[in-house]
């Protein structure tokens, strides 16, 4: 027994020594280790690819001699992500970015276990001493998209491929609808929920179904280019790039896109870790801050519509216009925002209701 205890103690001492050694080595190298967790493959052409490209840009900007990038792709939301992050933290990551909504609680748990590691969670709302939340105001881009969609549709039917029922997606639907309706009062939205961020076969089926039902504009909140491929095949149907530019499908069916531009944020946060100024925060940046980009509006869109869309983009960027400005009612007809009133961030962050005029219900 005694012997065993001694062995154990010796073992523990060795581990302690090793840990000290490796920390020492890390200090000597002076390289900041940055971890990324992606929900999809890094070449999905959309969400995960853009996070990864922004991460690579961050490494390039700061210098490969100063930062080391580690990442894991295709990490399922939920307990698996907790394991992946724990592993990264154990391997000595200084800061870990978890880049999908469903990583929120797992990130919070891991952040609690590793108080010295900094955590950054995308698109969520929970924070702690060493966990920040960052997100982009994609609904600002949706307002521009809705304007183009409302002007471009001939059939007055706009198809919307929705992914997972969380506030971010619902917000996007509402914003697109409000602005399509504003320029075209006859417009109607058909919405299909797929319960996945990325499944090309399902996305293609959904796009075809919407087109069969008369939609000639397809908006998507899923990450693959399959809906654009379906739009191209059908002919006479337009769509938008999501998360990435999806420029392969320009000038038509892809007439514009919403681009996530995370690189400036990643650069500033990693630098903050390096100079010790990192503090937990919760930020929500939009077109004005450069986190949300509007991809080039192609020639498939008439000049006046393009000008109108760009004017909307500029007004949002300057803060002159807020996409959720009253008068607006909720779907059940109850009042939400009075004339001229602007939605507060709290309501937007938890938005799980449709605005007046959208049919169907938000899955709960």
């Amino acid at each position, binding site marked *: 027994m005694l012997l065993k205890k001694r062995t154990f103690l010796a073992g523990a001492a060795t581990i302690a020594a090793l840990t000290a050694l490796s920390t020492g080595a890390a200090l000597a190298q002076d390289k900041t280790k940055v971890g990324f967790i992606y929900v999809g493959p890094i070449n999905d052409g959309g969400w995960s690819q853009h996070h990864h490209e922004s991460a690579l840009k961050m490494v390039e900007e700061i210098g490969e001699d100063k930062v080391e990038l580690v990442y894991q792709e295709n990490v399922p939301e939920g307990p698996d992500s907790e394991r992946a992050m724990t592993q990264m933290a154990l391997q000595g990551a200084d800061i870990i970015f978890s880049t999908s909504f469903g990583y929120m609680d797992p990130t919070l748990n891991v952040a609690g276990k590793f108080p010295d590691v900094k955590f950054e969670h995308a698109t969520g709302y929970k924070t702690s001493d060493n966990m920040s939340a960052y997100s982009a105001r994609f609904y600002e881009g949706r307002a521009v998209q809705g304007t183009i969609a409302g002007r471009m549709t001939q059939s007055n039917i706009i198809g919307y491929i929705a992914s997972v*029922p969380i506030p971010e997606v619902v917000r996007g639907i509402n914003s697109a609808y409000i602005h399509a309706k504003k320029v075209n009062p006859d417009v109607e939205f058909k919405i299909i929920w797929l*319960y996945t961020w990325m499944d*090309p076969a399902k996305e293609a089926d959904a796009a075809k179904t919407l087109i*069969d*039902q008369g939609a000639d504009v397809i908006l998507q909140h899923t990450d693959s280019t399959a809906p654009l491929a379906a739009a191209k095949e059908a002919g006479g149907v337009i769509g938008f790039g999501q998360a990435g530019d999806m420029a392969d499908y320009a000038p038509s069916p892809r007439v514009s896109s919403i681009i996530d531009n995370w690189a400036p944020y990643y650069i500033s946060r990693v630098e903050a870790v390096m100079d010790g100024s990192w503090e937990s925060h919760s930020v929500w940046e939009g077109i004005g801050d450069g986190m949300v980009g509007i991809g080039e509006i192609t020639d498939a869109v008439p000049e006046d519509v393009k000008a109108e869309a760009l004017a909307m983009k500029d007004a949002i960027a300057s803060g002159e216009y807020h996409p959720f400005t009253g008068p607006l009612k909720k779907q059940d007809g109850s009042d939400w925002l009075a004339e001229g009133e602007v939605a507060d961030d709290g309501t937007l962050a938890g938005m799980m209701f449709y605005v007046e005029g959208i049919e*169907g219900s938000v899955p709960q």
Partner: protein
Amino acid sequence: MDFSSINPALLLASLMVASTAVLIAAIGELIVEKAGVLNLGVEGMMITGAICGFIVAVTTGSPLLGFVAAAVGGAVLSLLFGVLTQLALANQVASGLALTLFGLGLSALMGQSYVGIKPPSTPKLDLPLLSDIPFLGTVLFRHDLMVYVGIALVAATWAFLKYARAGLILKAVGENHEAAHALGYNVVRIRFMAICFGGACAGLGGAYISLIRVPQWTEGMTGGVGWIALALVVFASWKPWRVLLGAWLFGGVTVLQLNLQAAGIAIPAEYLSMSPYLITILVLVIMSFDRSGAPASLGRTFHASQ
């Protein structure tokens, strides 16, 4: 709620498209199981076929060559399963599961540089007179060749199993491999051929997804269709026409639920999303109450010395 926006002809037409991949894969697996072999690697062979077909179609510019390559790719992968289970006498369940995992990884590796590329489009078989028939023309005669290949495969399989001598031998091997062996048939060789056929069909089904239905390449894009194909074979009591029915049912409910969602029907989207799986299994379970058809030697290892 507005049902008028759902066009029944287009609905039936997209049903045919949505069911083709699962149909072709299932009919291949039916032959394999009729020969007494349980290959759970359908998903792996499908995804390998999907990428093989995609690569060849993109490099040569010919979708037809792509489909040929998909069939070859699926068959080659199934040979691995054949060697393991028929020659090395490994456990079929474990080997099949391993094949699926292997196929998923292999296809991801092969497809690294093919993401985001558009494949050449497969021409639709536009039959001049037939496709102009109102309603029926849209439903039946405006599809790509593979839709008809799928249905022809069902008919051929049915006829093969019922009338052909080789079909009877195949069934004999699946029902009682010792007896078939005693009669002088080479059980291992027959099973090898069945496994290859199953692999080729799975490959074709996979390529249908990557070349026609989506069409593009993404990792894991078959998304569990192989497992549905496996379930269809069992619930269809190993009968070809019931496999067709099950595939149509699955494809039909899949597109119907999307149509209902788009039409804004008041059923919650969650229930609609799970309905294809639920309804297909329910109907086929009810139909399979006669308990006929399970090949008696299914999943059992055979060696001539036993």
